[in-house]
């Protein structure tokens, strides 16, 4: 009767030799015992194979020695030979022999370049505050200085710089930082914030300067054309202070006083100037405009996320318009309103008062990983009496933070209506996906509102999240004028 059984073998690979096999069972019987010719053939093949492998693996050069030699005076005696001098073929003895063979050819482990690179990169820490990414790089960090990304407005593009945050003032309820930023498009700026939260009160001082040489202007009104793009330079500085009071944890009201200096100039990039494109009489061209800004604000936050006040500085004029707080809400609502009076300090007739209202709703679905719907409505109305508003201080929509199917600042006018809607779902542990639609309109007067011709954009976006916060997003959107791709830090709303 034929029986066939192949038992498992222990295969061992030593560092310098080809794998060899310790047969636990090596017999393979397929019938009657093999004859002498077959047995010799088998042995001969085994012998030749062993000799070839042995010659192949013999190193031609000296092998690196182990970094330390075992203390032979303490070595366990070779127990593979018993007292009668017969070789011990027990299993334990076999396993000991394998270990001794490995010990004779061991080499020190040296991490590869990839291992060292991964170890270095994984030591990075980081934090994302609205629209900026601050890194903690252990081996680069010197005296409280940190690399930072983001933080410049307009058409700055990719921005990077250094941020100084002194640890003596560090804490969850305190803020003290200064930064220096720049971008490859020639933008640069500096900023400072200092303040804290003291019980129900929040207060801080701020200052900022930005050099923005490649800003775009397409004209005023909803019917501006993309092919009439003009370029300009704006140097803007702001300094001021803000105070707020929380009558209850979810509410905040307060005010700020700021001084803003605006310097207009010719832009870079070879585009027509604003004066050439739209006339030299456009408000804001040629004059330096300084404002004393007096503002008041109110906020009510009933979302289901931990409320991070972020020192209230999102109401300060140092923060980008239509700014958001990057918290992942799935339920509740948020409401913010503010009024700011801009008083010209150079006697020009450019005073104006602006009212804004920002409302957001979050409607949960909660089916598997479909979070729900998120909506935002934003309205801004500017009242200037008979005065004029510099074109660069007009409200605008277009770009990553408003109307995503259009480039940044595409439509400008005194007044803005904007609505955003998203369906959000989780696709990965740290990435959400959103299908969105944006609708926006700019107008000079309420009578000019044309509900039949808003600007619409729609698209698909992905958000990188961690610990309840959106760190960054990629949005691909389409509008009437084509496709737009937006990369931004933080969420839109």
């Amino acid at each position: 009767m034929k029986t066939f059984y192949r038992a498992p073998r222990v295969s061992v690979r030593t560092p310098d030799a080809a794998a060899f096999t310790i047969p636990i069972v090596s017999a393979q019987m397929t019938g009657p015992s093999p004859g002498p010719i077959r047995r010799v053939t088998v042995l001969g093949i085994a012998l030749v194979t062993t000799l070839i492998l042995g010659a192949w693996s013999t190193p031609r050069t000296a092998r690196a020695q182990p970094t330390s030699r075992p203390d032979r005076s303490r070595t366990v005696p070779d127990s593979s030979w018993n007292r009668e001098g017969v070789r011990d073929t027990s299993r334990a003895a076999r396993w000991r022999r394998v270990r001794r063979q490995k010990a004779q050819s061991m080499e020190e482990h040296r991490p590869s370049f990839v291992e060292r690179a991964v170890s270095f990169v994984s030591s990075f820490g980081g934090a994302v505050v609205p629209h900026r990414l601050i890194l903690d790089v252990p081996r680069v960090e010197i005296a409280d200085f940190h690399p930072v990304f983001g933080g410049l407005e307009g058409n700055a593009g990719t921005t990077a710089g250094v941020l100084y945050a002194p640890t003596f003032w560090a804490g969850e309820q305190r803020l003290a930082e200064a930064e220096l930023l720049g971008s490859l498009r020639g933008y640069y700026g500096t900023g400072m914030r200092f303040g804290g939260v003291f019980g129900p009160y929040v207060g801080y001082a701020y200052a900022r300067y930005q050099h923005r040489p490649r800003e775009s202007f397409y004209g005023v009104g909803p019917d501006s054309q993309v092919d009439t793009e003009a370029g300009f330079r704006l140097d803007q500085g702001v300094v001021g202070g803000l105070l707020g009071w929380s009558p209850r944890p979810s509410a905040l009201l307060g005010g700020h006083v700021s001084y803003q200096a605006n310097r207009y100039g010719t832009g870079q990039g070879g585009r027509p100037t604003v004066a050439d494109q739209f006339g030299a009489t456009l408000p804001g061209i040629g004059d330096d405009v300084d404002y004393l800004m007096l503002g008041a604000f109110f906020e009510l936050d009933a979302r289901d996320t931990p409320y991070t006040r972020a020192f209230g500085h999102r109401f300060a004029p140092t923060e980008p318009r239509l700014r958001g707080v990057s918290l992942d809400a799935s339920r509740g609502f948020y409401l913010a309103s503010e009024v700011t009076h801009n008083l010209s300090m150079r006697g020009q007739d450019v005073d104006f008062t602006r009212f804004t209202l920002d409302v957001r709703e979050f409607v949960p679905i909660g089916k598997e990983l479909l979070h729900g719907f998120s909506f935002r409505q934003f309205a801004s109305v500017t009242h200037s009496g008979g005065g004029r508003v510099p074109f660069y201080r007009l409200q605008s929509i277009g770009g990553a933070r408003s109307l995503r199917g259009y480039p940044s600042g595409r439509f400008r006018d005194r007044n803005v209506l904007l609505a955003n809607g998203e369906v959000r779902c989780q696709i990965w542990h740290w990435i959400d996906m959103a299908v969105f639609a944006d609708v926006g309109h700019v107008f000079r007067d309420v009578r000019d509102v044309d509900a039949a011709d808003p600007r619409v954009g729609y698209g698909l976006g992905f958000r990188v999240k961690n610990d309840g916060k959106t760190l960054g997003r990629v949005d691909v959107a389409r509008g009437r004028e084509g496709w737009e791709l937006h990369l931004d830090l933080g969420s839109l709303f």
Partner: protein
Amino acid sequence: MCAAFFDSTRGLRVRCAGGLLCLLALLGGSPSSAAAQRFLSDDPLWHDPDRMDMPFPEPTPSDRGIGPLEFFERSFGVPGEYAVPAKNVNTVGGVPNSSWYTNRHYRSPMSPAALRQGPNQGPGPSARSPWRVVELGPPGGLPRAIIRDTTGRPFRILFDAPAHPEMATGAAMISSRLLHALGYNVPQHWLRRVRAGRLVPEPDSGVTQSRVDSLLASAAQRPDGTYRALVTRIPDVERRIGPFQFKGTRADDGNDVFPHEDRRELRGLRIVAAWIHHSKIRPRHTLDVGVQVEGRRFVRHYLTDLHLTLGSAGATPKSEWSGHEHVLELGRIFERIGTLGLSGGDWAEVVPPDNAAVGRFGIGGFDPRAWRPEWPNLAFQRTTPADAFWAAKKIRNFSREDLRVIVSTANYSSAEVADYMVRTLLARRDAIGQAFLNWGGGLDRFAVRSGRLTFEDLRAAYGQAPDTLRRTVTWRAYDNRADAVSPVLTRMTSSREAVPLPDYSPSYLRASLVTPRAGTTRVYVRQTEQGQASPGGRLRRRVVGVERTAPSTAERP
């Protein structure tokens, strides 16, 4: 003499003799055919000689994990049906005691006191004088530090997060006892109540009292003003080497010869990790240490960071997806993109327990076959049914009382929490038993007593199968040198857990126990002549081999 083999002018006889002598020389000169035997004199081996005196390996970074290439390979590769058996097992499918593993509760039932004591062989930190803080842990995560007690011994202490008191420390106490009883090496774990003034900075360590106070300010505080501290220590450490990997071997450790992905205790750890929800297991939560015992230096391999087990992810509960998915599974991502999240995430609807001390740990949504760690590793992906059976039988062996004793070491302030933990561990234990104890028919603990082959039907013992199930038992003689079997000696059917040995005296007998719809277990019995005065009769019989197969691959018995 070897050259003679290649000289074609010599006769065949000379070539035969030369080749034979060469081969015999390579085999060590023994004229015996020991190399051809399946069972050797010391089978089944229960002590792996892997604690030979070897130089300590060089330390490796503690954050060394799997490389990016291996991560993508593990995430995108399809392991498929991996049928290669584990390489470090003995002939009865067990894992010999080694620097990795020690057979404990399943082989030799531990008393309640021993279960409660767990790995704590030796005194804990001194209870009287202040502890000197030598080093503070990194910011973020749980507050932790390294201290020295009055005897100068170093300990690591860890506190709970204020939002989740008792969660991390309780998990560590329970899991350390469970893993120790299962056989794994774990640090010693104690729970201590610490007052603020107990921790003082070590002189010249760079630690200041204000930093110590900041550490305690970020820890959960009990109503009486004290702090609950988890104190851990690994004894006899002469060198902290670094984490071990779940694949390959350590190149500079002479004792490490079995690829880690083929070690049964590491493959079976996947089932254990599923039981205690150790979904965060990865190399950085392991530790190799160099120890010296009886003059021999070798590496001992530990599982650490046990505060990341059960419902705890450290300062926060585990994520919803933990245990259900790897960190990256592209198929599920595309499924969710296509369905807007309506498919590919059924774990999101599992309601977690509403208790800060429990975290996210329950029986809802638990499937032991589908459970996986957050970070894939090769050893877990190579777990075979035999490896799973090995681990499952040890897990299922824990009784309700055993688990109650072990959970009591967590010293939860709420009896409800302790009761919940026991019930959850029991439920997960039962689910693991249902999933993996079928292998080969679910039979174990083979022994020869009074001329009978005795065993335990694990499935019947745990109520998973009727105890009246009849199985077919076939006896044959076995030729250990030729690995061949004789024609059938006897055949019977029986539902009992003891069958008589046939009255034949070959050196080896093989019994095939076929359990309907469950598989086949083959048991090898060695028979040796004893002295006539021996009370056991003239033959000394011993079980030397066990192998199990599934029903679809079973050969004819």
